[in-house]
Every structure is written in structure tokens, then in C-alpha cells.
């Protein structure tokens, strides 16, 4: 009988309380028990590890047809981490989903009823998602690096990890993707809507640089390096398209600043707005 069950447990159930550690465990469960998350993480991992290998294989196959200047400027480090162009979409979208998905479904109310101080939920979400993203993309980045170097050896294009910038690029790409995930989690919490969050993420990172392209060159050149994606991806390249680029770590620091801004705004909104 229901009564018996309830009463019996009333005496037996030990009382817990909300701690940041408990909330982290809860968020880990939440992240890992959604099909959409698992697919996005897999997509991010496979594209980060696989795209560079695929491109390297194609390039080596067509090596003889490449123009002399293409061969001269070829850099296998860029090829290795090139997978981030795809992986950033998977990571960015998942970052939005991690929290906006809760708003879309109403789950956020359950989350805040359990953790009424709210901020521990945000920290735990960001912490768990960032940790998972960093580990996955770092492993993928190393896989891509070693596989690509093995492939390009046939034309003597290989680099070792000890070469200048190599380790920075391999690890930095994972850092960039992780910070991107943190930023879009903030965006998701701010916009509180899956479609809107993804739209804002795509606008800020991919459309905004295109808009600067139609500005007068002098204006564009002074703005362009400071745009989020342009600042964040310097760490993932050995060659620079823009002459007045930021330094790799300076760019990443600025990108981290943008992420912190998004997260800070999200935290304020979380405390002030009704759920």
C-alpha cells in the first residue's frame, strides 16, 4: 500500500543536502543521459580527429598537382587541427543546448526547485561540459596530430611536437573549443531558447566577421582581430591571414574574456529573472 511505503521510508531515508559537489554529479548525469548530447560529443570528437586526417590524405595524394607556392606554404600543423572548423559547430550548439534545452522543456524549474540558489547549477553545467569537451577535443587533437604527421611524412612535411608552435597549436585548439563551449553555454542561459541561442552563436561567431568584410578595409582591419572567433582561433593556426592579428595567447585571453562576459551576464540573469 502506498501509505505503508511512504511511512516506512520516512524513517529510513537519510537526509542529504545541496552541495556544489552533489550538483556537479547531477549535471554529469544530465549531460550523459541525453541522446542529443552523446551524438553532439561524438560528432565533435570524430570531426576534430578525422577531418584533418582526411584532408591530409587527399593533399598527399594530389601533392604532385599542387602549385609550387602551395607546396612551399604547406603546413601540416594547420591541417592536423583543421577539424576544429567542424568541431566548433558541434561544441557550440551543444553548449547552447546544455542549458537552453532545459528552458525549452521546462526542466530548468526542476533544476531550480532542487537547487534554489541557482548559481551552483550554472557553475556545475559549465564545469562538467567544459571538462568533457576539453578531454575529448584534446585527445582528438592529439590523434589528428600524430596521424597527420604519419601521413605527410611521404612528402617530408612532418612536424614533431617539439617544433615551435606545435604543442601550442595542438593543446590550444582544445582550449579554444572548450572556451567556445563555455561561451555558448552562457549564451544559452541568456537567451533561454534553443533556436534563439544557436542563432546568436552563429551570428556572433560566423556572421559578424563576414559583416566586417563589407566595411572599408581600414576599419575592418582594426576591428576584425578583436572579433570573438578571429581572436580565439589564432591559437589554432601557424599562419595568419590577417597581418594585424593578435598573439596566440593574447587572442585566446580575449576570447576567454568574451566567454566570461557571456557567463557573467548569464549568472546575473539567472538570479534576477523568473524561471
Amino acid at each position, binding site marked *: *500500500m*502506498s*501509505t505503508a*511505503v*511512504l*511511512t516506512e*521510508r*520516512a524513517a529510513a*531515508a*537519510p*537526509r*542529504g*543536502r*545541496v*552541495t556544489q559537489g*552533489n*550538483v556537479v*554529479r*547531477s*549535471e554529469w*548525469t*544530465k549531460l550523459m*543521459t*541525453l*541522446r*542529443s548530447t552523446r551524438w553532439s560529443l561524438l560528432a565533435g570528437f570524430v570531426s576534430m580527429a578525422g577531418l584533418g586526417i582526411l584532408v591530409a590524405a587527399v593533399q598527399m595524394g594530389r601533392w604532385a598537382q599542387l602549385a609550387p607556392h602551395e607546396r612551399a606554404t604547406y603546413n601540416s600543423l594547420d591541417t592536423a587541427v583543421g577539424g576544429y572548423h567542424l568541431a566548433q559547430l558541434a561544441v557550440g550548439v551543444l553548449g547552447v543546448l546544455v542549458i537552453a*534545452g*532545459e528552458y525549452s*522543456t*521546462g*526542466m*530548468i*524549474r*526542476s533544476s*531550480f*526547485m*532542487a*537547487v*534554489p*540558489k541557482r548559481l551552483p547549477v550554472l557553475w556545475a553545467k559549465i564545469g562538467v561540459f567544459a571538462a568533457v569537451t576539453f578531454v575529448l577535443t584534446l585527445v582528438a587533437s592529439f590523434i589528428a596530430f600524430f596521424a597527420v604527421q604519419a601521413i605527410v611524412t611521404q612528402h617530408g612535411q612532418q612536424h614533431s611536437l617539439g617544433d615551435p608552435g606545435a604543442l601550442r597549436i595542438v593543446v590550444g585548439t582544445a582550449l579554444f573549443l572548450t572556451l567556445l563551449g563555455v561561451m555558448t553555454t552562457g549564451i544559452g542561459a541568456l537567451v533561454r531558447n534553443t533556436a534563439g541561442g544557436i542563432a546568436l552563436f552563429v551570428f556572433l561567431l560566423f556572421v559578424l566577421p563576414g559583416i566586417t568584410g563589407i566595411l572599408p578595409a581600414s576599419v575592418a582591419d582594426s576591428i576584425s582581430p578583436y572579433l570573438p572567433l578571429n581572436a580565439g582561433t589564432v591559437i589554432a593556426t601557424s599562419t595568419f591571414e590577417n597581418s594585424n592579428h593578435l598573439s596566440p595567447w593574447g587572442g585566446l585571453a580575449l576570447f576567454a574574456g568574451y566567454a566570461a562576459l557571456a557567463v557573467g551576464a548569464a549568472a546575473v540573469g539567472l538570479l534576477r529573472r*523568473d*524561471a
Partner: protein
Amino acid sequence: MSTVYDLRWRQVHPHERWWRSAFSPIMEDMIEVDHITKRYGEKVAVDDLTFTVKPGIVTGFLGPNGAGKSTTMRMILGLDAPSAGRVEVNGKAYRDLQAPLHEIGAMLEAHAIHTGRSAYHHLLAMAQTHGIARTRVNEVIELVGLEDVARKRVGGFSLGMGQRLGIASALLGDPGTVILDEPANGLDPEGILWIRNLLKGLAADGRTVFLSSHLMSEIALTAEHLVVVGRGRLIADTTVAEIVAQASLNGAVRVRTPDAAQLRSALAADGVTVASAERGVLEVQGIESERIGAIAAQHGIVLHELTPHRASLEDAFMALTGDSVEYHAAGLDRLPTELEHAA
């Protein structure tokens, strides 16, 4: 502090009082809503509402759709901030509770559950925030009868299964207070019966239950106390017994007699109104059926029918909230009365 609590507190012997305050930090399971108002732009959803959900009994929260019931519940649960006033759960603002799931469990009308997750994992994630064991998750799944579908995604659940999962979440922390927003919504008759028994079980355990509904009949079966709202305002804060008494007072007695005119004059007295809807049938108000029978006998009047019809609880509820229903179905509303008069 509410007067109810104060009174009970004073009945406790001073020594006992000291002991209690020293060793039981959790006060009684009660909710105090103190002059809360909630505005959304121009619209006032909840308007200076004050009431107390008393410990250990089932309190019904009744009102038409759009009366502000769900908004009030969200404010109790710290999800929405009141524009004015304050709410306390066990003497604290909800946000200040260290382990809210152990103190107050809630099921909201709009299901607060991610559709892509399984019931088991939803409950597990909720439990983990408080360090509640997995065994308890399985217990509540069993309790609400969801064992067979616990590993399936919630998105595929029927309304009734979703409702059961909502109740499982509410009971997860084995709380002293349970808040349920329209728990009978979307349930089949079997499910409704199950809910009723569950509520009785919760009440028998001595838990505080706060239960909203727009159906008086549903509430009257389980609730002891009633808080009635309309358009965000408090209409009544009373017991079910009182409402029932009120309802039967207003009841009419239907009398069928071949000597209608004679009976009409015999009944003529202060406070008695007699109406006739059809020939040979009188609707008498303000006097009990026993008295009507006695008067008829005195005058030798033949009666073919003497039926007291109590105004139903639903009628009483309509009478209470009639003015405050936000969306009237004008045509349908008037139809029955017009028919009555035409007859």
C-alpha cells in the same frame, strides 16, 4: 509567524518548548503566503494574496483557470519572485532552504522534465543534487507504478505517465510538505482514483499537502481546508465543511402537487420564496422539505413529489467565483438558465 503556529506553540509546555527549539531545527511543515502580488507588465496575476497552508492537513487551492494558482505556487517554490510581499516555507524563504527536496516536494502543471531523458535518469539527476541514494529513486518509481517504462524517454509518455513521474519527483526527497498543481489533470478514472488514494495516504502520514484544482468536486474529496482565489485575489479561506453547509442552505425544494395554488398560499411566510417553472411544480426556497411536508399534511394537500435538491459543491464554487472567471463562455453559460425559464 502565523497565529495558528503561535497558538500551538503556546500550548507546548515551556520545558518542552526549549527542547523542541533546541533539537528540531525544522519547524512544522507549513507555508505562509504574506501579501504577495505578481505583476506581468500591466496584468496583475496575483493581487495581495495572504493565506497559510496549515501543517498536517490537505489544503485545497481552488480557482478558475487563470486565477493565479500556478503563479502563486511558482512563487512559493522560489521560481518566480513576487513583485511585492513574501513567502515562507517552514519559516524560511525557499531560496534559503539547505535541502529543499527534503522539505517540500512539488509537481507543477507544466511538466518540468526534459523530454529526452528517461524517467529513471531524470529522478537520478534530481536525487544527486541532494546526495539521495539510487535505492530511493527505485522506490519512488515503484511507488508511482512506472517500473516498466522507467528506462524509456519521457517524451513518449502519456499525460498520465507524466503525471505519475511528476509525483515521483515530488516524493523523491520524502518531504514533509507536498505541493501538487492540478494532479488529476489528464488522468483516466483509474488514475484519478490512484491520486485520491495517494493523497489520503500522504495526509494519513501527517504530511502537509497543498493541492490546486479548478474542480471543486475533486478537491472536496480530499481536502480539509480550502483557499479559494479568483483573478489573483483571495475569495475564501475556509473549511470544506463550511462550504458544504453554505451550499445546502441555498438549496431549493421541488414540490409536485395538483393543488399548487393552495400550497403556495399555505407556505407564504417570511423568507420563503416560491417559484413555479411548470404547471403543478413549485420550487420552494428558504424552508426545509420536512416543514413543507408537515404544512401540506395540515392543509390536506396531496403531494406527488417532494425533493430537496442541495446545491452541489460545484454550484457553491460557481457562486463564490462566478464574478472572477476570466474567460466566460457566454453562450454556453446562459443556455441552461434560459431553458429553465422557458419551461
